[in-house]
């Protein structure tokens, strides 16, 4: 009999005497349940060291991953949503915005910044899924347009990190036109031969995929991200059939010719640096 065998059956420690593990010390992978110390999880760019699962992170984390010494200057930090349609569904749109602002600590679904990546000047626009599903309304469109403008003025390569369910319904027609606005700005950037790398992360669908996300000189994605125009539920309902396994994943898009490459997040900075250096 091994020395560590439990002699008594059942746990006898009363609940009141149990010691709680402080929150945030460990990360448990939702895919494979593997436990990693949080510091290590951050070191691996918020990906699971066991199964490679990419946690859905936000702009702050991406900025820290990409910019040297986590140093960057944010653009248009004070811009927030208006309510041009006086839109009301289950609650008025301004109320929804205010609640989301409070809960997320964000002003809207994108943040833009410039700084250095391994010494190269870059401009980055990064979406936050935590703000109404990363939906694109006037603020997202305008901030991305201005980030493109900044990249154009300063001739810095542009990286847009997409993570969005699509256009924001509460701004209806205005949201739709943000597809046009951002695509127009990217046309000007392309004309000036300033490189643009699009990074699609989980998920990138709807109006975002049908505009700037697909218009990169280089279209790239994180592994296993959901990427598509229509969401899987809509497609399933339309055709009345189950969808093939792996449908609309990064790997599927790569196979069908819509991505240049898939990049693991922990290699993101090095790979983008190498790519941009080759264009110099």
């Amino acid at each position, binding site marked *: 009999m091994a020395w560590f065998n439990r002699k008594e059956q059942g746990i006898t420690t009363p609940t009141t005497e149990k010691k709680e593990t402080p929150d945030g010390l460990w990360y448990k992978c939702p895919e494979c349940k593997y436990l990693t110390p949080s510091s290590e999880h951050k070191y691996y760019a918020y990906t699971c060291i066991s199964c490679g699962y990419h946690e859905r992170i936000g702009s702050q984390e991406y900025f820290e991953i990409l910019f040297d010494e986590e140093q960057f200057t944010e653009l248009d930090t004070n811009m927030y949503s208006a309510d041009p349609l006086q839109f009301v569904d289950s609650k008025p749109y301004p109320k929804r915005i205010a609640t989301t602002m409070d809960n997320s600590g964000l002003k809207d679904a994108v943040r833009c910044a410039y700084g250095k990546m391994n010494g190269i000047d870059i401009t980055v626009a990064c979406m936050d899924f935590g703000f109404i599903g990363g939906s694109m309304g006037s603020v997202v469109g305008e901030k991305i347009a201005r980030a493109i403008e900044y990249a154009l003025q300063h001739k810095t390569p542009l990286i847009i990190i997409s993570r969005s369910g699509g256009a924001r319904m509460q701004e209806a027609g205005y*949201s739709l036109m943000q597809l046009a606005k951002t*695509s127009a700005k990217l046309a000007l950037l392309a004309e000036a031969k300033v490189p643009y790398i699009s990074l699609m992360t989980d998920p990138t669908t709807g109006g975002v995929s049908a505009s700037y996300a697909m218009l990169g000189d280089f279209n790239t994605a994180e592994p296993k991200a959901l990427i598509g*125009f229509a969401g899987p539920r809509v497609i399933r309902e339309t055709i009345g059939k189950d969808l093939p396994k792996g449908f609309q994943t990064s790997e599927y898009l790569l196979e069908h010719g819509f991505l240049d490459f898939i990049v693991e997040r922990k290699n993101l900075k090095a790979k983008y640096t190498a790519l941009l250096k080759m264009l110099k």
Partner: protein
Amino acid sequence: MNLDFEQPIIELEQKLALMKSQLGANDNQNPAISTAIKTLEDEILKLKKETYQNLTRWQKVQLSRHPDRPYTLDYIENICDEFIELHGDRNFSDDLAMVGGLGTIEGKSIMFVGQQKGRNTKQRQLRNFGMANPEGYRKALRLMKIAEKFNKPIVTLIDTPGAFPGIEAEQRGQAEAIARNIQEMFKLKVPVICIIIGEGASGGALGIAVGDQVLMLENAWYSVISPENCSAILWRTWDYKEQAAQALKLTAQDMLGFKLIDGIIPEPLGGAHTDPLSAYQAVKQAILQTIDNLEKISPQERISQRIDKFDNMGVVNE
């Protein structure tokens, strides 16, 4: 087919028809009878005006989908002296939900592109309910590039419940095809006029709707999503489509008020289908007039105005 809100008008029209059918040979001379008919006719006109000038947003959506409403090829065939349809995207296939070709109006050559719906079950299937696949958008772009090459203005006619959401559409890059069109349309050196003639749903509409002048027919709608799908997402049921239509502010009048479109083409009282000939005439005049105005501007100036116009769309606080 009649829509529910048209019922009172239909009843009066039936009454009038009955009255006229019962007229005897000499009744025309009877002033009392002709006055009665005149009164009833006036009443019908008044009721029509009241009804159609005060339609709710959902009622306009219903009109925009009226099964008798003229579709893209109806307009093209009726306003062009000659039309040669051009097919295929040169890569995959010929998408019948997206049509196009060269036509002439009063001697002027124009490239037409637009979504096409079908009128009966077989046609609807063939045209995929006006929902294009990626090859449709690529076909549209190919034709627009041909127009640019030969310096011909482009007219796009938009009438779609959305780009097709299917497995093959995703496989062949629906998102990329639409994004590419939107971007490329900004760079076209020739005048581009876009007219929403029925339904203008989301990216599927915008994929051929970036132009120097974007016009809407009076009873068309244009928005980021259809009222039904908006209802399904926000209220988790299709039952709130009327509220959704109201909230989306998707009519031509709304869109013009927001400066998201450039003009409205009036329809005959009761909608384009009640008097298609005058609808064709109105669209034809709008096309000729708009091309005339746009051709006075240099290509570079047109492109920069086109970009500036869309760049100014959006309302934010800061």
